[in-house]
């Protein structure tokens, strides 16, 4: 996108997205404090109260505000604890992908030449990597787990980070202050950490925010397929899958956790979009 059109971005997109920010903050808070605020143990079984509807339907009770699943587990408590797993996987994946991708992106952009070519070819290769299918293979061979999901997500994420950072570094390294630092005797790693990285931070924050939603959706999809975090852990994707057989009689088991995914992912994407407009006009076309 050209600079001219960027400057004309609609004013309506500049104001603070309050609702989305509150949802994002709340989801992080819930993920941290799930153990304190959840009304029930997310894995406690209560067969007498199985498939109890939410409180706003006939037969619902405040004991289980969002109803219970087929084993009588509290849907609300499972959703609250699910936030911990969903955001946790996203955080670990972003940490892996962000660190590796940023490091390789800086190296590729700064060194150039065959190092650049090698790293970027590798990044393109990983971008075309069928992550969902590799996760299925991992589920059969090493068995599904939290760390396998985080690793699979990280494998794709690092390439996205590397691409972004390399592009930025290419633009920054021709600036005078980098040349000056070099003349002053600074070495490559010093320049990378003290002069290049601070200029890339804005873009990194934007990319991280936008990728949280992606990571949550992919984790939920993998867990839904049985290749993510295995039961009985309270995961959003797993809850949707468990409710599928009872969709005609007890729809809330599948629908409620889906609403949670939608709200959190939508909020992260709205905040990411807003940050992109505020912090990083260059990223607007991504």
């Amino acid at each position, binding site marked *: 996108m050209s600079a001219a059109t960027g400057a004309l971005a*609609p004013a*309506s*997109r500049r104001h603070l997205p309050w609702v989305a920010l509150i949802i994002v903050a709340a989801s992080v808070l819930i993920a941290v404090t799930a153990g304190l605020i959840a009304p029930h143990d997310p894995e406690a079984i209560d067969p007498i109260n199985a498939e109890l509807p939410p409180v706003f339907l006939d037969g619902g009770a405040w004991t289980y505000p969002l109803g219970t699943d087929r084993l009588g587990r509290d849907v609300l408590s499972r959703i609250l604890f699910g936030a911990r797993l969903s955001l946790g996987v996203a955080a670990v994946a972003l940490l892996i992908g962000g660190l590796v991708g940023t490091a390789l992106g800086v190296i590729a952009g700064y060194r150039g030449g065959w190092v650049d070519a090698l790293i970027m070819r*590798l990044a393109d290769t990983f971008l075309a990597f069928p992550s969902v*299918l590799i996760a299925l*293979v991992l589920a059969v*061979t*090493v068995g599904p787990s939290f760390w396998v999901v985080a690793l699979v997500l990280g494998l794709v994420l690092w390439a996205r980070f590397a691409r972004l950072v390399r592009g930025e570094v290419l633009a920054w390294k021709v600036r005078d202050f980098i040349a000056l630092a070099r003349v002053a005797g600074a070495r490559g790693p010093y320049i990378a950490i003290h002069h290049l990285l601070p200029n890339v931070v804005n873009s990194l924050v934007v990319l991280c925010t936008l990728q949280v939603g992606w990571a949550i959706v992919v984790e939920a999809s993998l867990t839904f397929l049985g290749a993510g975090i295995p039961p009985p852990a309270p995961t959003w994707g797993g809850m*949707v899958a468990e409710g*599928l057989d009872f969709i005609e009689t007890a729809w809330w088991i599948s629908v409620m956790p889906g609403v949670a995914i939608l709200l959190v992912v939508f909020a992260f994407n709205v905040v990411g979009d807003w940050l992109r407009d505020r912090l990083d006009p260059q990223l607007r076309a991504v």
Partner: protein
Amino acid sequence: MVSAIASRLLQAFLTLLLTSVVVFVLARTSGNPVDLVLPAEATPAERQAFIERNGFDRPLPVQYAVFITGALQGDFGISIRTRQPAVDLVMQRLPRTLALATVGLLVALAISVPVGVMAAAYRGSGWDRFGQSFALLGQSVPAFWLGIILILVFSIHLKWLPSSGVGGWRNYVLPAIVLGWSISAGIVRLLRSSMLDVLGTEFVKLARAKGLSERRVVWKHALRNALIPVVTFIGFMYGVIIASAVVVEVVFGWPGLGYLAYESTLWRDFPVLQCAVLVYTAIIVGINLLVDACYGLIDPRVRV
């Protein structure tokens, strides 16, 4: 141009190589490969014969060479579940996945081209906000959950459309909508920014100055140019749609390649899963190559 093609071919080759190495290493290093490929009720004699036939006592690189030579000739072993060659099962299911992905892509275009163009033509207006929210929402809805909601509403309550299986065109409607919407977000976003770029160029000003109607300027002159970056993106999207088809096929009981891969996971039918993953990768890589080749046809500036 030649070096660009060579680089693309190398890319495709690397992706396939990487996937095959990953699948191979995972299969060989996690536990006993014999358990992974032979059914649990195999006799010790069968196991011994299997080890000797496949050379599991030889070094890993040699084993990989044997595996990849067989794979290139279409030999991925025998399905643990049905005892048919894995490659036959995969090829049987492949056309259904391609059909669904193609219809899904058409739905995505039918949704996102009008939305993207209107958002750019009336930027800052209600249309623009609608287009952008629509794109963001499509990006945020998990496909498997949207599928369940649509089944709940249109199959169970309204009884308008079937919830699963294949048959007539009615079976395509729900899964294609889910696939189409989930990828239309990216297309809307890209088309909008591409349209805004084109609408700011000199030749659009000229077309307007000539007195052409605004509708003609937007839908014919500007759109044709704005679609160029979208076409490359669509090639990339085809890969995404095929990959996300796994989840959608499972929700809608669509007996395609994705559903086969999922079933193989449940049955621990490793030979079939392995074959499905590699065929999947080959298709995605092949389509990307094809799109790159077509790029020159659409954009004369790339032609040599």
